[in-house]
């Protein structure tokens, strides 16, 4: 090769080089494979099955809309009520979680100056036991002969155990709120921690009291984390079925229980699949409505 040829080669190899946007793409390949294999494919499967039907023990691959017809007519009123009820219970739990988590996150972000990591680790301590065990603990607390009842009986406030503590929507909501609180603290903490302290000083300098400053500066700037926390708790709890199974009784069941029944005891996978699809749709709509209420302008502003 002559010396003159060298620059030409370089130019050519520059042209054939990978485009820049491909750089670093391999970093997401493992995750992408897992997501496609373990989430997208099964999800597509669910959607597929929801258009089939069940006859006895066999699934008929006979493309039809029967399952959806059931869910959207009088026949499926119960399912629709159950979806709305699940959304409502999750919403209540989510509001409770955010209300519990916000002061905690605020305390960690603004009042803890040293060893923040220790506080974060302490926050994860409940996760060292299994989810099942934590829900079971609430059964022990709220139960007929549980901690609250025997405690109240011992100090003489009641003669016989209170029955309204367990096996109802309220007990499910309480349990969900407790189980998910830690998930909400972290995103809120991060967005509070990010707030430049000089903003707070400037707000005070411009005449704000502490309370006013919170609503004019701190809260709006923590919106990204608070929204993330809300979605992080709301979305998974709608479909939860372990908590209602253990502490919900008959009145506290949620849509997840119904889906499990369709795939299990009722042996109607296509209807269960359709129910899952409708539930996902309902969650999507609920989330969209939530974000619309928050408002695009504020989201954009909070994005900084």
């Amino acid at each position: 090769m002559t010396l003159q040829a060298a620059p030409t080669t370089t130019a050519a190899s520059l042209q054939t080089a990978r485009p820049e946007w491909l750089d670093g793409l391999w970093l997401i390949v493992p995750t992408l494979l897992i997501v496609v294999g373990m989430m997208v494919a099964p999800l597509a499967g669910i959607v597929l099955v929801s258009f089939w039907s069940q006859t006895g023990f066999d699934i008929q691959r006979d493309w039809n809309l029967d399952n959806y017809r059931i869910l959207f007519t009088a026949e499926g009123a119960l399912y629709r009520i159950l979806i709305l009820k699940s959304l409502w219970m999750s919403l209540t739990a989510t509001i409770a979680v955010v209300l519990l988590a916000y002061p905690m996150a605020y305390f960690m972000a603004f009042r803890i100056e040293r060893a923040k990591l220790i506080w974060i680790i302490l926050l994860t301590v409940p996760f060292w036991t299994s989810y099942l065990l934590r829900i079971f603990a609430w059964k022990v607390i709220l139960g007929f002969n549980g901690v609250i009842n025997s405690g109240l009986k011992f100090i003489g406030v009641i003669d016989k155990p209170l029955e309204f503590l367990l096996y109802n929507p309220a007990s499910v909501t309480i349990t969900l709120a407790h189980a998910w609180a830690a998930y909400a603290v972290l995103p809120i903490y991060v967005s509070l921690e990010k707030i430049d302290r000089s903003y707070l000083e400037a707000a005070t300098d411009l005449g704000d009291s502490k309370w006013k400053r919170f609503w004019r500066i701190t809260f709006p700037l923590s919106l990204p984390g608070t929204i993330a926390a809300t979605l992080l708790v709301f979305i998974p709890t709608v479909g939860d079925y372990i908590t209602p199974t253990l502490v919900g009784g008959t009145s506290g069941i949620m849509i997840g229980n119904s889906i499990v029944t369709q795939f299990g005891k009722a042996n109607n996978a296509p209807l269960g699949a359709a129910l899952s699809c409708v539930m996902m749709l309902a969650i999507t709509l609920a989330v969209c409505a939530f974000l619309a209420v928050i408002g695009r302008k504020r989201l954009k502003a909070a994005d900084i």
Partner: protein
Amino acid sequence: MTQPANSRPMISLQSVSKRFGNFAAVDSATFDIAPGEFFSLLGPSGCGKTTLLRMIGGFERQSEGDILIDGEPMGIRPPNQRPTNMVFQSYAIFPHLDIAENIAYGLVNRGFDKATISKKVAQALEMVRLGGLGNRRTNQISGGQRQRVALARAIVCEPKVLLLDEPLGALDKKLREEMQIELRQLQKSLGITFIFVTHDQEEALSLSDRIAVMARGQVLQIDTATALYERPNCREVAGFIGNMNFFEGRISSVANGVAAIEIGPGQHVRVAASGSSAPGQVAILAIRPEKIDAAATMPQGNGSISANVIKARALAGSYLGDRSLILAEWREGTAPVSVSLQNRKAQIGAETFAAEAPIWLTWPVEAGVLLNN
């Protein structure tokens, strides 16, 4: 700036200290600032100037003493109840609000109606030359513009005192010089008392009516720019503001208001004596580089009482265009004397004095300053 005797000071610091354990960030600061004064706190980082400013604004609580603003003791009043506003070093422009909303922030707290607020905001925007940019987002404007927004947001509240914490520190040199002029004009037209914190001596000298020079929590000297430069009261101030040569020695005699200092065996320099000067005292003669003249040959009439003459050895010279800087050693083991010569004629200065060649340094007696420490 002379302060009318009958006027009440706008700010009165009464032995204000801020202590952290044994360490005093600000040690017993006591001085007054007149209404409408442009007052600077100047000093190296860590000297306590920002802490003092933040105590005036109410962001830090003083450990001792009190601060009076317009005659009213502030005690531990929080910033939102003080007649002061602050321009923060980082500007602290609220990112979730647009420019107009940022400027209106403090006005909302003062209970103005919407129409008044928008009128005042528009005026403030005009004043800092940001007219028409009110609905821009904060990330759509430049650093200099952010600085103006911070300024407008504070002065629109019409504070009695405006506190500025190194407000120009983040700007590039050209922009900084522009803003200095604007800031000074703004202060003159508004008549608000400005307290300006800076570590940049040039900035302080060109902007301020008076400057307080601070070091290690102490206020060393409070004076006008000219007085600080021409008559520093201690070695630290003399060394911090501009360049200064020091000749250390003992006073050998005081006569006719002139003290002779023996700086070496049999070698004397003369300087205007202070009231307390007495023979035997340890003393320092401080002399600015530009007040010294240099000659390659022994000057004529060096016996005259009006000038000091020292023979030295040229060490190095550098040509700086408008002037030349020469370093000369007058005695081994002492810090070299720096001499700044105006290059009024071509080719004088650096080239004239070959390294190692003898050089005679002369300066009038009244050009030097006598320091005690």
